[in-house]
C-alpha cells in the first residue's frame, strides 16, 4: 500500500473514530440566580444555597449572579433576602429574611439552572406572601446560613430577627456572624 493511500485510509478511519465525539457534550452543569424582585422594592438577594451550590455574593434587584458550577439534582433553594439594602450601598444589611423556593428546582446534566428569586417563586417573605413554617425556618437559620443568624433568633411569622438576649429590635446580619464563622472545626 502506498503511503498516501495509507494516510488517506487512516484519516478516514480517524475521522470515523472522532465522529462519536461530536455527539459528546461535556459542558458542565451550571446554575445562576436571578433576582426578580422589582427594582423599586430594593430587595437584594443576599445569599442562595441550592443542593450543593452556594451563591455567596449579593444580587441586586433585577440582576443576575455569576454562574456557578453544579451537578444535576432536584432540591429546594434557600435564600436570604435583604430588604431595603443594595450591594452597592456597602456595609451589612440591616435585616435578613429567610426564604425557600416554593417548589424543588431541578437541572439536568449539561443544562443551566436559573434560580429566579421573586415573591412568586419563593415563600417566606412576610411582606409579599405566606411565612415559612418553623421547620424550614429552623433549617435555614441553624444549618444553611448559621453565620447570618449567630447569636440571634429568627421569627418566621414576622421575618424579624432578635438578639438571643431578648432585648428586642432587629439584629443579625453578616456582622453578627463574624465571630462564629471559624468555630467548630
Amino acid at each position, binding site marked *: 500500500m502506498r503511503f498516501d493511500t495509507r494516510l488517506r485510509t487512516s484519516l478516514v478511519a480517524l475521522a470515523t473514530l472522532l465522529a462519536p465525539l461530536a455527539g459528546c457534550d461535556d459542558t458542565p452543569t451550571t446554575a445562576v440566580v436571578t433576582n426578580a424582585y422589582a427594582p423599586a422594592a430594593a430587595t437584594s438577594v443576599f445569599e442562595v444555597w441550592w443542593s450543593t451550590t452556594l451563591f455567596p455574593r449579593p444580587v441586586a434587584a433585577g440582576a443576575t449572579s455569576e454562574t456557578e458550577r453544579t*451537578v444535576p439534582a432536584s432540591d429546594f433553594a434557600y435564600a436570604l433576602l435583604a430588604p431595603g439594602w443594595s450591594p452597592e450601598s456597602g456595609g451589612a444589611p440591616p435585616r435578613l429574611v429567610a426564604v425557600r423556593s416554593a417548589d424543588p428546582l431541578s437541572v439536568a446534566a449539561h443544562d443551566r439552572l436559573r434560580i429566579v428569586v421573586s415573591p412568586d417563586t419563593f415563600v417566606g417573605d412576610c411582606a409579599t406572601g405566606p411565612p415559612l413554617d418553623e421547620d424550614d425556618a429552623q433549617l435555614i437559620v441553624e444549618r444553611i446560613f448559621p453565620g447570618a443568624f449567630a447569636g440571634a433568633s429568627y421569627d418566621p411569622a414576622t421575618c424579624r430577627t432578635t438578639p438571643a438576649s431578648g432585648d428586642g429590635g432587629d439584629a443579625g446580619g453578616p456582622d453578627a456572624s463574624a465571630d462564629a464563622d471559624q468555630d467548630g472545626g
Partner: protein
Amino acid sequence: MPRRLSPLAALVAAALAVGGAAARAQAPAPEPVEPPSLKERGTAVYPPEALARRLEGAVGLEADLDATGRVVDVRVITPAGHGFDEAAVEVARHFSFEPARRRGVPVASTVRFSYEFHLPPPPQPLPPALPERAGAAPVGTTIVLGQRPLSAASSFSVQDRDFQLRPIGSVQDILRVTPGLVMVQHSGGGKANQYFLRGFDADHGTDLALSIDGVPINLVSHAHGQGFADTNFIIPEVVERVEITKGPYFPSQGDFATAGAVNMVSREAFEHSSVALGLVDSPGHGAAGYRGLAIASPRFGDAPISATFAAEVGRTNGPFDNPEGWDRYKLFNKLTFHPSGASTLSLTEMSYAGNWHGSGQLPARAVAEGLVGRFGSIDPDEGGDTARHQLALAYRLHPTDTSELRVMAYVATYRFDLFSNFTLFLRDPDDGDEIEQVDRRTFYGGKASYRIVHTLGRVSFDTTLGADARSDDIHEELWDTLHRERLAAVRSSDVHETFMGASLNEEIAPARWLRADVGGRVDLLSFSVDDRLASASGVDAAHQLSPKASLVVTPLDRPRATLDLYANYGHGFHSNDVRGVFATPAVTPLARAKGEELGARARLFDRWDLAAALWRLDLASETVWNGDDGTTAVSDPTTRQGIELETRYEPTPWLAADLELTFTKSRFSTDRENGGGLALAPRQTWAGGLSGRHALGPGVARGGLRFYGIGDRPATDDGALTAPGFTQLDLHLGWRHRWFDVAFDVENLLDGTFRSAQFATVSRLRTEPAVGAPVPAGFSCGSNARLAPGPTAGRFYGCEDVDYTPAYPLTIRLLATLYLD
C-alpha cells in the same frame, strides 16, 4: 545429503523465556536483570527421517551463555526424537545473543527456548513480516512473549511485551504489572493515584518509591501529602520496562523504598514512527474523552545516535456528573549518543501540564440519602492544575568488560494547585471547607555508581559503590477558598530539603547454588523551613545508616524443575514532611523501616512458575490521613506481616494464566487496644487473568482477560468502620498489522458498582446539625458511619463516614495506531 528448508518452510520458533532466563541466571539475582535477547539465529537442517515421515516437532533447549552472549553449552530439556534433538542442538550452538545485563553490566546467563520444526505449509498466502526486533520470534510463530518473572525474591523486571496484553490507558495501568500492587484512581484523573502494596494504603506514594530512568517521581514535603507521586506526566508508550523491588533490601534505594520501589525505563528509540487516536467512554455516564499521540523516531544513517520524540494531548471527562475536563499535554524527547561501543550518553526531556475538575470524595451517607448521585459532587469546584518539566542527562561507561560507571543528573520544575473539600461544612458552615493546596518547586539531583566484577579462586565478587543527592526548593501554601477564590491564608512556607546518600553492595557467589549480598547505605537529610505565617521555622538535619543483606540458595536446578530460596533483611526509611519537625507535636524527619523476608521460587515442567514470600516490615511511624486540611500526619510505630503467593501457568505456548494473592496483617506495634488494625491497610489483594498472543490473518492478535481486587479493610484504626473491597474485571483485545494496530479495552467489564479510593473522614453536610448543637432525636449518620466524638456528649461534631471516589463503571477505550514507516 540432508535437504535444507527455507526459513519459511521450516518455521523456527525461538521462544525466549524472558523472565525465566533472567530468573535462572547463573547466580539467582535479587537485583533486576535485563534478560538476554536473540541476536542471530540459524536454520536447522530438517531431519531426513522426520521429513520422510512428514513429522513435526518441538525441542526444548537450555543454553548457557557467557557474558558476551555466546552460546557455550546447549542441553535438550524436552526431547522430540526422530533426529530433531540433534538438529536443534547443532543449530542452537551457533545462535548468538545480546547478553543478559545486571545494572547494565553483561553477565553470564542461562536461557531456555523451544525450537520448532514445521513442515512446509500448504500453499496459502503467508502473512507479511511483522517488524522484527532482537529476541522476538519471526512472524507466524505462536508464542507468548510476555512471560512475567516471579517476585518471591522481591525483585524482577517486566518487559513492555507484558504491558501489551493488558488494558493500557495510562502509566498507572503499566504499574499494575507489579504483583501485589493495586491502584485506584482518586478524585479524577489529574491527581496521583492511590497505591496499595504490602499492607500499605500508600496515599499517593508515601511508602512506594517511584522513578523513571532513575529520576524520582515522589515529591518530599509535598503540599498535598508526603511522597506525592503523580505519574501522569509519563506517556505510557515510552515505557520499555519496569524494574520492581519489594521491601527495604536494596542499597541503591533510599527515601520511600519501604514497601517497595518501581523504576520505569524509557525507550531509546521506537521501531516506527506513528500517530494514534483513542477514545474513552463510559456509556450512560459522563462524556467521552479522547487521546492523541504522535511518535517520531528518526534514523540517522550509521551515525551512533538515536532520537525519539513523542507528544500526547488528551481530554478526559470520566463518568462524573461534574465533567472532569482533564485537558493535558505530555512531551517526551530523548537523544541517545553512543560515542563508542562501551559508552552511552542520553538526554531526556519530559513535560506535562494538565487541569481538571474533580468530583471529590463523596460521603457514603450523602449518596445513600440521595443528596447526590453516585457520580455526583458536593463541591463541584474541586480539581486543579499541575505541570512538571524535567531534564535528565545520563552517561554509562564500561571501562573494562567487568566494570561499569553510571552517572546521571536531573533537574525538574513542578507546579501544583489543588482545590479540595474533605470536611465539607464542618469548619465553616457558611462558606464551606474548600481549601487550596499550592506547591511550587524546583528539584535537582544526581546519582553515580561504579561496579566491578572480579573473582578470587572460584568465588566471584560483584562490588557496587553508589552515591546520590537530591535537593528540593519548595514553596507551599494552604488557603481557605470558596469557588476557587482565596478567602484566607492558612499556611505559607519556604522549604529547602537536601538528601545525600552513599551505598555499598557486595555480591559474593562462592558457588553456582549460593550467593550472598551484603551492604547498606547511609543517608543524610538537611533541611530548613521558613514559615511565613507562624513561628514553625528552623534548620535541622538527620541521618540514618541502613544495613542490608540477602542470601540466595538454589537447592534444585534440574532441566524440568528449579527452586530458589531467599532470605532478605534490610533497613530503609521514608522521610516525613519536614514542616512537621518544627510543629507541635514535632515529628522525626526520618522514619526507619526494618524488613525481613523469606521466599521461594520454583519453575516446573518449563511452564509452571510458583512463588511465595513471607515478610515482615516494622515502621517507626506511619503517615496518617488528616481530613481537616487534606494532609498527612505521623502515627505510632507499626508492624506489618504478610504472605504473597504467585503462580503462572502456560497451558499452551501462546496462552498464559497467572494468579497473585496477598494476605497482610497490619497493627500498631504498641498495644493501644486498636484491635481492628491500621486504618485503610489492605488485608487481602488479588489479581490474575488469562493472556495470550496468536497469529491471526495478516497480523498478530493479542488479548487479556484480567481481574484485580482488594478485600474489605478497616477504615478506622479501631475497625468500627469498614472500607468495602472490590473485584474488577478488565478485557483487552488487540490486533497488530504491519501498518497499524487496533486496541480495544473494556474496564470493569461486569459494570460493578464499587468504591475506588476511600477514607474515613469527619465531615458535615450543610443540612446536618450545626457543630456543637444538640443531636436531634432520631438523627443518624447512616450505616457504616458514626457521630464524631466531641467535648460534650449528646452534641453534634460531624459524622465520621467513609468518603469515597466511585470506581469507573463499564468503560470502553479504543486506540488506533498508524505506523508511518
